[in-house]
């Protein structure tokens, strides 16, 4: 029980605020209104917050962690524990999430946006017999210019959960980290990993108070629950959006390039695909979307999630792909011509 004492665990059943309207819950000193205006009593779901009123306290990783490539962390390593975000700093208390009064901000922004933000990306994910495939391009755009041609849009959350990100990169990166932290806390408290469905619900509820603000996160969570044997129903792919949407499905594509990707995927995705076919289909869909969509491009990342965890394919440049295909086309054309001559 020491862990719970440290977290200031409160008995959720005594909290009688469930049926009270939002207007009565503006009391700032009580941090159980953690998630802003519309509090759901989430402490019954295993999350608990201390009563301290210090401002938002984010965990700063140790220097050793920073030297490790972020792409490598979480990758399957049979020697280490199934879940390894970071070793805790010995002098840090367990981080807790408590907002100062007036946070999150109200719906109407006081500071205007410097430029219009949109989901300039192509990400996709689908389920098949061999697990879940997640793919995304790597172009970060900023109002017409390419801010980064080699960004990472698929972020691992833990060894068996990967999330694609779309929307504002900073928001997505931050909320993925917060989600990773909450899942780790859940695992420590309850001794088991939270399912993908639970993680999606958790993320959706965390994002809900920010609805109406400029926060923009559209993620698909791809995970594997249970062990080798498929104990749970095929509940591995969820789409979560900062406007509050949470959908379970077998195929999702998000971003400005998603219609192009959908048309390729709808023609090819079947349950019985082999792993190679699925990967090549995912690459093809991203390739076609990057061809047509200005805000998608550069490279493609493909992740494959199975019962053993996630594996990452090496990043591939699509420009070279285009070149090869063109060369291939020309070769075929020349062959045809030479046949007729």
């Amino acid at each position, binding site marked *: 029980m020491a862990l719970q004492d440290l977290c200031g665990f409160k008995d959720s059943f005594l909290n009688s605020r469930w049926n009270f309207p*939002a207007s009565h819950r503006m009391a700032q000193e009580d941090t159980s209104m953690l998630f802003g205006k519309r509090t*759901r009593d989430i402490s019954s779901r295993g999350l608990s917050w201390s009563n301290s009123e210090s401002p938002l306290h984010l965990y700063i990783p140790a220097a050793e962690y920073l030297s490790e490539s972020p792409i490598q962390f979480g990758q399957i390593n049979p020697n280490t524990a199934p879940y390894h975000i970071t070793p805790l700093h010995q002098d840090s208390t367990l981080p807790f999430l408590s907002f100062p009064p007036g946070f999150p901000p109200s719906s109407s922004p006081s500071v205007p946006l410097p430029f219009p933000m949109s989901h300039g990306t192509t990400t996709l994910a689908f389920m098949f017999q061999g697990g879940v495939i997640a793919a995304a391009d790597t172009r970060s755009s900023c109002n017409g210019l390419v801010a980064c041609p080699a960004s990472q849009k698929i972020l691992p959350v833990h060894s068996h959960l990967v999330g694609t990100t779309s929307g504002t990169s900073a928001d997505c990166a931050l909320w993925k980290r917060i989600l990773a932290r909450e899942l780790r806390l859940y695992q420590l408290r309850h001794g088991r990993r939270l399912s993908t469905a639970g993680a999606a619900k958790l993320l959706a509820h965390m994002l809900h108070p920010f*609805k109406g603000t400029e926060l923009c996160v559209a993620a698909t969570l791809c995970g594997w629950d249970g062990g080798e044997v498929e104990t749970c129903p095929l509940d591995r792919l969820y789409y979560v959006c900062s*406007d*509050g*949407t949470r959908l*379970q499905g077998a195929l999702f594509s998000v971003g400005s390039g*998603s219609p192009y990707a959908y048309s390729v995927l709808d023609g090819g995705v079947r349950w019985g695909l082999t792993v190679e076919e699925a990967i090549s289909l995912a690459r093809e869909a991203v390739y076609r979307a990057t061809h047509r969509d200005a805000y998608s491009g550069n490279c493609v990342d493909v992740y494959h999630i199975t019962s053993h965890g996630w594996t990452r394919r090496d990043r591939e440049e699509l420009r070279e792909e285009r070149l090869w295909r063109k060369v291939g086309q020309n070769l075929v054309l020349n062959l045809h011509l030479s046949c007729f001559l």
Partner: protein
Amino acid sequence: MEYLIGIQGQDFVLVAADNVAAHSIVKMKQDQDKMFKLSDKILLLCVGEAGDTVQFAEYIQKNIQLYKMRNGYELSPTAAANFTRKNLADYLRSRTPYHVNLLLAGFDETDGPGLYYMDHLSALAKAPFAAHGHGAYLTLSILDRYYRPDLTRDEAVDLLKKCIEELNHRFILNLPSFSVRLIDKDGTHDLEKLIPVGSK
């Protein structure tokens, strides 16, 4: 873009909802269930703004279940409808109103079947038949014309099919399938999904 419909009979309530979850021009999900089970004999059908629907409906659902846990008996459909409306009204003038349109259908032991229409301005009306969405403009007059209070179950399903065929014929958006459920004294029954055949 979404569609809900409810028809109350002598001793049952028939409800249907479309199955599309859309984001701008793309159908993200084609088998979305928009009905939330509040108790054995009460269903809440919820459409509206993307995240608000599920959040609000689940909030009501869990609170109804909590009431049952605390007090040992379930809320009647009338009480549940009024509770839902009260929550909508309380949030209406806050900074974060819920933009949702609802139908609540239930069967009470003493009062019989009931269909309650609620909208995002927290209006509440008990009605013999009701519909939400753009499709309602096209189908309410069909319901006006053919509805009788003493409809049998089959007649009610036929009336529902008439409405859906009209939608298929005239509504600009394609709604490929509809979930249908029926509530009577024995509880909630799932009827087979209605899939309108290609347009006339």
